[in-house]
């Protein structure tokens, strides 16, 4: 029965091929097939979780390529961590498939959307199920490709195709580091399977510096994929893609791949304090950095994009300080409520026809389901007590506090305050208040779009209980995903919980005061921090920096190479051509002069010798007779002499 696990990544691949080949004319077939496939995968994931719970982890391997003693095996690993990821990916993917049936309705490439979604799901599932780094890397690249395809789904728009390129190129930068790390790993350890690598690391045969180098390089890949500073610049632009894409890829799954990588490599990372420090610093910085930008964004999807970056920062720094369980747990809860928020925003955009929140307002009257599910999602994100985000975020902050990382805790708490603030700013502006012109014409979305919202809202509430401290240890997610590792167990500490909840509530309160009840004017803070605000609005000028420092020199370099190519390389080629022509001319002369000369000489000489030989023909018969007899006489004399002598 464990062999069934092959189907989890395999079914979407088959679905991808079938919809690619057959789905062209029939959109409904494509969408229904892929949704059904994802549904089956979802059920299989539940089964996988059950299997891991009852039997413990298992893996399946097949030898792929052997030469002598060098062997590469391909296989799937199902342990607590991958089973949890399976659940997350299939759930969100299934829900997004349902939602897309409504959202993408009428699109001219409706069928292709589902083809690409299938490919993405297959790749992501392959990524989490891989049992070695090589397979994971293959799927890593594949999800990057799908991200490019899906961000640029509406490629007729230049902004979309530019955003797709940017996403791919920026993540590529991280991937280079990761590839070098993988190569180093292979040359030091000799294998890329997780069990092989971690076993070698445990045995202590890799030098400390090497481990640090490898993990930092692997982390580069995570920085790119999970949009950490400084490679976060692609994620906000990725919002050019359709909203279901943003929900699935850029909130719940692909960006989580970097976190998954660090989590999966946790046994490796935990051997190097330097790397853990780097991870923690980058994570924390990203968290507050992105949250600060989100505060001033006016595009609903951009707010959510920066929020995602910020929350990913939480997960990363959680791993950096050693809170493996908390970090991965937060990944799961975040996937649910962030997907919910994105899909909800999709509903809003669909209804209001704009993405600018300044043009929206009072939507609660027209879109009840969307509004209330959105609010549940925002509350979960803000860490409102008893919702999923509360359990996971508090666990992270609690861990930080009880391990003495007070600076990180303070930054994390302040970020929580900002998070609550910008989310509820969004809510008050979009859903409450005066109805704008755009909102007048809006209406609630069809059931196929609201049901996913409800499903996700439910999950955003109850998913947290998998990691609640009062849950019996054998069911607790911590025990489930820790596997072999000895991970510190978080004690239920009162003080950090109170502080973080307070931060969240304060944020909500401030947002209410500024945007809900309009008690404090919205530019109250603005007056204090005017110059700083400009920086925030321009996203700390990161894009301009990138443009100046990287893009322009790259273009200059490309121009230089172009000139080099034209002048020198083409010059060489032309020279070669000219030399060939000269040689052929010489050969021509040789051919004419020498060869033809010989041929002509032969003919001439034949003629001349004929002229001379002709003279033999005198026509004089007695002359002929004389010659005949003379020769005869000589011959006879010769014979006689021969017999005598």
């Amino acid at each position, binding site marked *: 029965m464990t062999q069934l696990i092959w189907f989890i990544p395999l079914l979407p691949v088959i679905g991808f091929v079938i919809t690619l080949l057959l789905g062209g004319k029939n959109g409904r077939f494509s969408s229904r097939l892929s949704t059904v496939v994802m549904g089956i995968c979802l059920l299989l994931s539940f089964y996988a979780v059950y299997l891991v719970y009852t039997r413990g982890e298992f893996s399946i391997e097949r030898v792929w390529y052997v030469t002598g003693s060098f062997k590469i095996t391909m296989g799937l690993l199902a342990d607590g961590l991958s089973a949890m990821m399976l659940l997350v990916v299939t759930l969100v993917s299934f829900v997004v498939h349902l939602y897309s049936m409504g959202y993408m309705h009428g699109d001219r490439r409706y069928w292709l959307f589902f083809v690409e979604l299938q490919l993405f799901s297959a790749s992501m599932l392959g990524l989490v199920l891989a049992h070695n780094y090589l397979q994971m890397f293959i799927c890593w690249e594949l999800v990057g490709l799908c991200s490019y395809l899906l961000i640029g789904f509406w490629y007729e728009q230049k902004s979309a195709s530019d955003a797709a390129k940017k996403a791919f190129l920026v993540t590529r930068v991280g991937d280079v580091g990761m590839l070098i790390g993988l190569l180093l790993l292979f040359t030091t350890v000799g294998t890329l399977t997780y069990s092989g690598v971690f076993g070698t690391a445990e045995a202590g045969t890799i030098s400390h510096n090497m481990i640090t180098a490898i993990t930092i390089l692997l982390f580069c890949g995570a920085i790119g994929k999970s949009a950490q500073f400084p490679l976060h610049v692609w994620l906000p632009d990725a919002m050019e893609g359709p909203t279901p894409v943003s929900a699935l890829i850029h909130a719940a799954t692909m960006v989580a791949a970097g976190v998954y990588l660090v989590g999966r490599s946790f046994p490796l990372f935990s051997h190097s304090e330097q790397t853990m420090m780097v991870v923690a610093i980058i994570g924390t910085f990203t968290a507050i950095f992105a949250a600060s930008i989100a505060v001033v964004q006016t595009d609903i999807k951009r707010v959510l994009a920066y929020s995602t970056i910020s929350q990913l920062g939480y997960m990363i720094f959680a791993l950096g300080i050693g809170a493996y369980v908390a970090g991965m747990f937060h990944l799961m809860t975040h996937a649910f409520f962030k997907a919910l928020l994105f899909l909800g925003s999709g509903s809003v955009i669909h209804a209001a026809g704009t993405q600018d929140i300044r043009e929206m307002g009072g939507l609660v009257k027209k879109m009840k389901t969307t509004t209330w599910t959105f609010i549940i999602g925002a509350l979960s994100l803000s860490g409102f007590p008893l919702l999923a985000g509360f359990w996971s975020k508090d666990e992270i902050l609690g861990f930080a506090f009880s391990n003495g990382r007070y600076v990180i805790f303070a930054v994390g708490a302040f970020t929580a305050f900002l998070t609550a603030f910008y989310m509820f700013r969004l809510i008050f502006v979009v859903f409450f208040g005066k109805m704008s012109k755009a909102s007048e014409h809006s209406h609630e979305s069809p059931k196929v779009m609201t049901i996913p919202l409800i499903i996700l809202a439910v999950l955003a509430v109850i998913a947290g209980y998998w990691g609640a401290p009062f849950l019996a240890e054998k069911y607790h997610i911590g025990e489930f995903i820790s596997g072999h590792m000895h991970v510190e167990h978080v004690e239920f500490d009162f003080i950090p919980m109170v502080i973080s909840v307070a931060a969240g509530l304060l944020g909500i309160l401030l947002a209410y005061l500024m945007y809900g009840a309009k008690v404090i004017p919205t530019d109250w803070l603005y007056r204090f921090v005017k110059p700083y605000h400009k920086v925030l609005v321009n996203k700390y000028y990161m894009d301009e920096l990138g443009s100046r420092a990287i893009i322009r020199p790259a273009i200059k370099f490309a121009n230089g190479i172009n000139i080099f190519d034209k002048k020198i390389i083409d010059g060489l080629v032309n020279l070669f051509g000219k030399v060939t022509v000269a040689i052929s001319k010489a050969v021509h002369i040789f051919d004419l002069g020498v060869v033809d000369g010989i041929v002509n000489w032969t003919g001439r000489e034949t003629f001349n010798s004929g002229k001379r030989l002709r003279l033999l023909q005198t026509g004089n018969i007695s002359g002929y007779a*004389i010659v005949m007899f003379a020769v005869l006489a000589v011959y006879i004399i010769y014979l006689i002499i021969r017999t005598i002598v």
Partner: protein
Amino acid sequence: MVIGMQWQLGIDLKLVHFLVVSGVLFCIGIFGVLSRRHLVQILMSIELILNAVLINLIAFSSFTTPDEVIGQMFAVFVIVVAAAEVGVGLAIILSVYRRKKSVDIDNINILKW
């Protein structure tokens, strides 16, 4: 025949005497072919050569194998061939004369280049 001639001449005839005679005749014939101008004279010289050959043949035959008359039989063939050849040769000379109005061998040099 030999005995008859022996009796007339009064000496012992040997093979070599006949060979010398045929050789002399042969040389006279060749001389004639090479030095005569008139076509018919050349033809007559060729006849001489043939006759010399005849004498040679018969001499050998009667001295070395008197019982088997191979040489004489061959001689009959040669006579026949000579006769035929003279007929054909005269015919050619006649037609050449009609063409060239001359039987001087120095005038018949059409084969000259």
